[in-house]
């Protein structure tokens, strides 16, 4: 049996095959599990269990799906900031400098994710555009949308980290993008006169911002690791202190919902 040959054949029907295997940890985790793939019955048990590990997880999206989801959001952000720059309403000086820097980072994220997906034999999404009809005419509202996009990005990356745990190199990169999005979000929020961190009250804001801070786990959540922060830590903390201390996840479905980023895609 030639495992490389099997992987090669699989890659013809599954573009994500390398993404599934691209982790020593996944390989070693697979060693202990039971062979389930009948087609591989003749193969040594450890290889079979490896495939079982790679293909047996019906629950989560594949690594390529996660990366394309991230790329979709980055493309949306990139196009938004391009439109914002082209609209010419951003004041010269510090505001224009900040938007240019943020755009530069989004472009870098697009390039990095596109290359990574291609390297993994996936097909990177492209031509994701910000819906023109949703693009605000005035600078203040443009900043509102920028805040919505950045805070959504923070929650979206956070929501996918678990799906990248099998690939520590990709998880690493995702975390390095995640914190950049958080820096962007903090700065945009500051430009709008908001706190850099998300207060509990944000979850009650009207659209378009409100839905960014809701979801199955809302940003005003005060329970972390089964500990109620307001009551269980000896010293009582306010609900706002508890909520602002932690950012929460959004699921893929929540982000792509029409009430959030999904509604901003052309």
């Amino acid at each position, binding site marked *: 049996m030639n495992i490389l040959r099997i992987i090669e054949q699989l890659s013809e029907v599954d573009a994500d095959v390398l993404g599934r295997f691209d982790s020593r940890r996944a390989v070693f985790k697979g060693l202990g599990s039971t062979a389930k793939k009948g087609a591989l019955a003749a193969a040594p048990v450890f290889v079979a269990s490896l495939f079982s590990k790679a293909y047996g997880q019906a629950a989560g999206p594949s690594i390529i799906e996660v990366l394309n989801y991230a790329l979709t959001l980055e493309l949306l952000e990139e196009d938004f900031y391009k439109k914002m720059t082209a609209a010419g309403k951003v004041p010269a000086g*510090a505001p224009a*400098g*900040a938007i240019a*820097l*943020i755009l*530069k*980072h*989004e*472009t*870098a*994220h697009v*390039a*990095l994710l596109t290359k990574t997906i291609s390297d993994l034999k996936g097909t990177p999404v492209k031509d994701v555009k910000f819906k023109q009809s949703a693009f605000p005419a005035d600078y203040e509202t443009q900043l509102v949308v920028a805040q919505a996009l950045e805070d959504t990005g*923070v929650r979206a990356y*956070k929501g996918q*980290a*678990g799906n990248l*745990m099998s690939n*520590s*190199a990709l*998880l*690493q*990169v995702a*975390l*390095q*993008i*995640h*914190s*950049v*999005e*958080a*820096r*962007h*979000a*903090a*700065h945009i929020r*500051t430009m709008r006169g908001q*706190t*850099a*961190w998300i207060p509990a009250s944000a979850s009650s804001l009207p659209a378009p911002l409100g839905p960014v801070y809701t979801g199955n786990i809302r940003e005003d959540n005060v329970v*972390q*690791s089964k*500990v109620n*922060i307001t009551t*269980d*830590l*000896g*010293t009582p*903390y306010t609900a706002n*202190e*508890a909520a*602002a*201390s*932690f*950012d*929460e*996840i959004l699921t893929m479905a929540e982000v792509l919902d029409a009430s959030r980023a999904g509604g901003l895609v052309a």
Partner: protein
Amino acid sequence: MADLADTSFSGRALHRRTFLRVAGATAASSALVLAGCGKDDDPTVTDVGTGTLVFAANDTGILNLTYLLAQISASFYQKVVTTPPADFTAADTAACVDMRDHEVIYRELYKSVLGPNPQTGAYDNGLATALEFNFTPYTLTTRAGVYAAARTLEDIGVGAYNGLGRRLRNGSYLRLLLKITSVKARHAAFVRDQAEPDSFAGSDVITQTGNQAGLDTIKTPVEVAKSLASLVPVVLVADNLMLL
């Protein structure tokens, strides 16, 4: 000390001698750490200054490092809030109170998550008093000095968290870490902007070109330990975390 108001740190002054338990290690490996204090009749104390804190090669070791980071940051902002520089504005104080609250919550949550077990829980479960941190490397008497120091600490925090995430085995710990990571990045962006306008994502923290372009800092556990060395009254040994 300026941080008298920090009730969770106050209490008795640091004892002359303090014992440091191996963070998350077994009894066997804690013997290793105690090698330097074998003359003590009472195994619960050792000489301050020769104490060593070894982080174990597991999730508990990682969480003990984030616990220490939270302790340091909480202590730092408490010191600033208690004795603000003369040129601090009300907005500066409000922001530092917020960040102090966040860090105290992290500290207490990590302590709770790590649990009370003296061997596998928070590293300082057996200490008579919590560690006291030394901020003399920083100038905390001016607004600029405070934000420069905060920038250093928060950037260390973001780099540390970014480097630790992939070393965790337990997915729920990873989720917890990330919920905090992005708020640390918000702190970092905010204090950077205060230290130097519009430096929230400056080229010293975000790679500008090449195949790492657009990516934030990563610090390895050993780099983090080195960065914190001057602030902590014990020797930090994070080598085990490099194996993860």
